[in-house]
């Protein structure tokens, strides 16, 4: 990605930013994040279809932020995360510059986060076909079958919290599972601990998740936990017309409508 390399060098050399976060070739056939602080390291920047890690997970990380102003190579999911984080006051124009990568893999530079938002709003968050089918399959099951499916599917989980670590929206300094007076969510990996962790993760991400699959991609055991967050996305659309990350305005769960409809309250 020649444009990206050139632009990264310019930004570092002019001290416009202190670090450019992008992708580099990893070991084997993997790609991974790179933190370019010297212009010559910019030559390592790459971009291709393997680059799916959500780099927005790094822009709230203390060790990265304290370097100074950051620039981040951002695909559409990363851009969405950035807008969501900005709406939650975690990043702003002073500490972040977005080097956008369009769905056609072209570099697009944004002067500020408002321009990123405009770009992001051209696209709807759509759940992919394969997972849509899986969600439909689960819907057709009985409640008992779903219980069995999830207890079984979550059984390999050993609570490594890679899903939490990889998600840009999980930036709480002290996660709800880290509290022990009282211990809300059981820490150990057993049926209850696994179930309640994944339930709470999904509900805490409701209205904030932008469907990047970072959680699923990070899971060392390939557990399809992204089905839970996708279900919340689907429900948000069904009940409340869906949501888009937006710099201004209310979040799905921090607001309400006087005529929110339900069919289960007596």
């Amino acid at each position, binding site marked *: 990605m020649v444009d990206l390399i050139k632009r990264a060098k310019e930004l570092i050399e002019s001290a416009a930013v202190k670090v450019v976060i992008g992708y580099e070739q*990893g*070991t*084997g056939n*993997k*790609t*991974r*994040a*790179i*933190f370019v602080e010297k212009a010559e390291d910019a030559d390592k920047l790459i971009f291709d279809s393997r680059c799916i*890690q959500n780099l927005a*997970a*790094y822009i709230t*990380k*203390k*060790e*990265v932020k304290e370097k100074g102003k950051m620039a981040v190579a951002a695909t559409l999911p990363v851009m969405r995360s950035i807008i969501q984080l900005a709406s939650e006051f975690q990043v702003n124009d002073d500490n972040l510059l977005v080097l956008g990568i369009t769905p056609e893999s072209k570099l697009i530079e944004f002067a500020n986060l408002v321009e990123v938002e405009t770009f992001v709003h051209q696209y709807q968050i759509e759940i992919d076909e394969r997972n849509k089918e899986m969600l439909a399959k689960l819907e057709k099951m009985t409640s008992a079958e779903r219980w069995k499916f999830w207890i079984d599917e979550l059984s*390999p989980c*050993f*609570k*490594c*919290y*890679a899903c*939490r*670590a*990889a998600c840009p929206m999980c930036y709480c300094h*002290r996660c709800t599972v*880290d509290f022990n007076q009282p*211990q809300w969510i*059981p*820490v*150990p*990996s*057993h049926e209850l*601990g696994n179930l309640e962790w994944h339930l709470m993760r999904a509900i805490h991400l409701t209205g904030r998740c932008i469907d990047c699959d970072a959680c699923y*991609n*990070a*899971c*060392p*055991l*390939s*557990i*399809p936990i992204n089905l839970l967050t996708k279900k919340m996305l689907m429900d948000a659309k069904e009940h409340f017309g869906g949501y888009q990350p937006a710099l201004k305005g209310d979040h799905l769960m921090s607001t309400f409508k006087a005529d929110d409809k339900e069919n289960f309250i007596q």
Partner: protein
Amino acid sequence: MNIDKRLIRKNSLEKLFDILKQNSKTIYAPFSKNGKTTFRNAESFAGISTGYIQTTESSKDIAFPRTEKILDYSKNKEGMSVKGIDLKDIPEVILWGVRPCDAIGIGELSSIFNWDYKDEIYNNRLSKVTVFGFSCNKADEYCFCTSVGGNPGNTAGSDILFTRLGEDGDYLAEILTEKGQSIVNQASALFEKSDSTEKEKYLAEVPVRFNHEEITTKLDKFFESEEWIEQSLRCLGCGACAYVCPTCACFDIQDEAHGKKGSRLRCWDSCGFSHFTIHTSGHNPREVQSSRWRQRIMHKFSYMPERLSVYGCTGCGRCSRACPVDMNILEHLISIQEVTI
């Protein structure tokens, strides 16, 4: 020293499994779920994963479970009553399909559980495990057992080591311990005598990538290096590497109470978590990821060799494969070796 060598015909492996099952043996073997392999209770031979270079999770779960109860307590009029678990209830298990790097890891893990306090529960579980090691015919770029004193046909830690002699071949079985011998006694017809010297021919090629003694020596002066920060910037601080590692032993103690009764559980923990070393006062001596990453490497390659005379790494490469952000330990160690202080 002469090792008792036997030949198991390729179709006899299943027969061996069935005989052991008939003798009411519990067998843990690798199973695949969502494309990842973990060790599970095997009821039948069908479904056991084969052809993997390395399982996703290690087999340490068998002696150091991801979660285990260590005691029950209950409060009544007289006070508090505490009951430890009954070690007699811990079953005997055959661990089937362990690689030499895992088998040797058992010794390394045991040294942690026995260095100052003898962990009765761990030792008891381990004493009831019979290890069926399977030599490696293939390796990938993540493997580096030969750099840490191991090799793909290493017998250390196994009770029986099986080596497949060729792609569709029979198995050479090296009977290494009394436990191994007692297995042979249960199915002696399947274990034909052998004087095969073919083993080396079928082992994977795992080139040595670094000198582990040099690294241990270098680490003595490496504590303040900036290299830790460079290496760990992309680390997300999850527990994947610690949990899949055969020699990582950090654990947490959790009390789970229901009213007046409860249990104390031991479960896995990771030094990579940001709150791992947090004090009640709020002070955290390892406040940044670089100090936590440094701890991981130092513990495995400096503190353990220094204090326990064993290495804390078997070169299985699982951490590198499991890591969501490609913290490839082999790559990091080579770069430590290459950096001039």
